[in-house]
């Protein structure tokens, strides 16, 4: 699984990183960074919960 955060949509709610800090890294302003970042199998559920938590629907998960 890969995860991409749409930097145009991300508004820094930090809900993804609060739930899944092992998947979602933040820049120094508090916005999530992920560009087709690989997610190992044991972190996929955390990645999905982080994506679901985003109120901007800015997170895309792809196979």
């Amino acid at each position, binding site marked *: 699984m890969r995860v991409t955060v749409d930097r145009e949509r991300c*508004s*820094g*709610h*930090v*809900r993804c*990183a*609060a*739930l899944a800090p092992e998947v979602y890294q*933040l820049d*120094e*302003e*508090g*916005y999530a960074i992920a560009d087709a970042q690989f997610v190992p199998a044991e972190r996929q559920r955390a990645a999905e*919960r982080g994506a*679901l*938590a*985003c*109120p*901007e629907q800015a997170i895309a998960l792809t196979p």
Partner: protein
Amino acid sequence: MSVDPSVETGAGTPPSIEFDHYTPEYRDNWREISDTNLSKCPVAHSSTYGGFWLVSDYASVSRVIRDDATFTSTHNMEDPEDPRQGIVIPPNPMLQVPMEFDPPLYNVYRRMLNPYFSPTAARALEPFVRQAVDAFLDKVCATGRMDFVLDLGNPVPALATMKLAGLPLDDWQTFAEPMHGIVSNPAGGPEYLRCMNALQQLGGALGALVPRLRDEEADGLLSGLAKATVNGERLSDGEIVLIALLVMQGGVDTTTALLSNTLWWLQDHPEQRQRLIDDPSLMEHATEEFLRIFTPVPALARTATEDVVLGGQRMRAGDRVLMSFAAANRDPEVFDDPAEAKLDRFPNPHTSFGLGIHRCIGSNYARSWFQIMLRGVLDRMPDYTIDRSAARRNDSIGIINGFVNMPATFTPSEPRGVELPA
């Protein structure tokens, strides 16, 4: 499926309501009023305050708040005839910098401010906030009585906001009082204007600090702003003061309102109070749910920049638009059983910090301060009882849905010997 053509084009007469978010009626019945608007007229025209559109449903609120080109935040202070009058209805007499800016200028300010409000910055302030909570609770714990607003909910965010701004901490009461007055009274009324006047005087005091901070090294936002540049130019003293005042207005009383509403609710739901005491891991989701069901900032405004159809209603360029976050947070299209507080609700895409690029810059601090204060109360006075006959809600919830004061009693305990942070 047949589609009513008027839904697409906005033809016909719009639903007309008399909506006034500053009345006691709204304060006492905002849930019922929101639910009625959601089901009967999610986008309706109100004749109050010179006329505006009230937007209640989640889809329309999120459309308005994300489309900054069509729905501007701009506030033209020079020309009251310009329909663009910012994010409050009726307009705030003071420009809110940079909330009342649009891109691209807005983004420049936001990027300059963001590092002071990041999760890292919020985490760094936590030891200070914990100490402040312990010190304020130390003052009252042996007496068995306290006021959740005046002894905790107001002082802690005020002190923490002054710390992050880099202001002298001994002045916190001077700042906290008018901030509280501005949000608990109707905009434009005499009390509001008195507090606004007090704030402008405080602005003068802040402005006097700026020249020294232009070169001198110091901690905090004010010092950072004094040295920052926007598009290659330094910020003026006036702009720095406006930004600092907005930060204080955001930091003081919003988190207070979330805490007081939560403590009130937990008194009605002792089993949920016990759940929160027993299971600290619940705090994360519970915080979002308290934000959703209490919506401390119930509504903010925009101005349409062009003709647009929203929720089947045709808006004209220059129309004012009020987004009801309080109603959107109760939209059954998005939230199952929206009237019910579920402390483990997930997902919970509430609108209480707004959405899009103007998202509340203080949200990382707000969550952190709220949780530390709530944890402090649940640890040290878990059996509290609010004196409901003596507690007073804000006269108006048009700006903030909170309490003026909230006296409570509890089983006394020994102080922990913690001093206020210096």
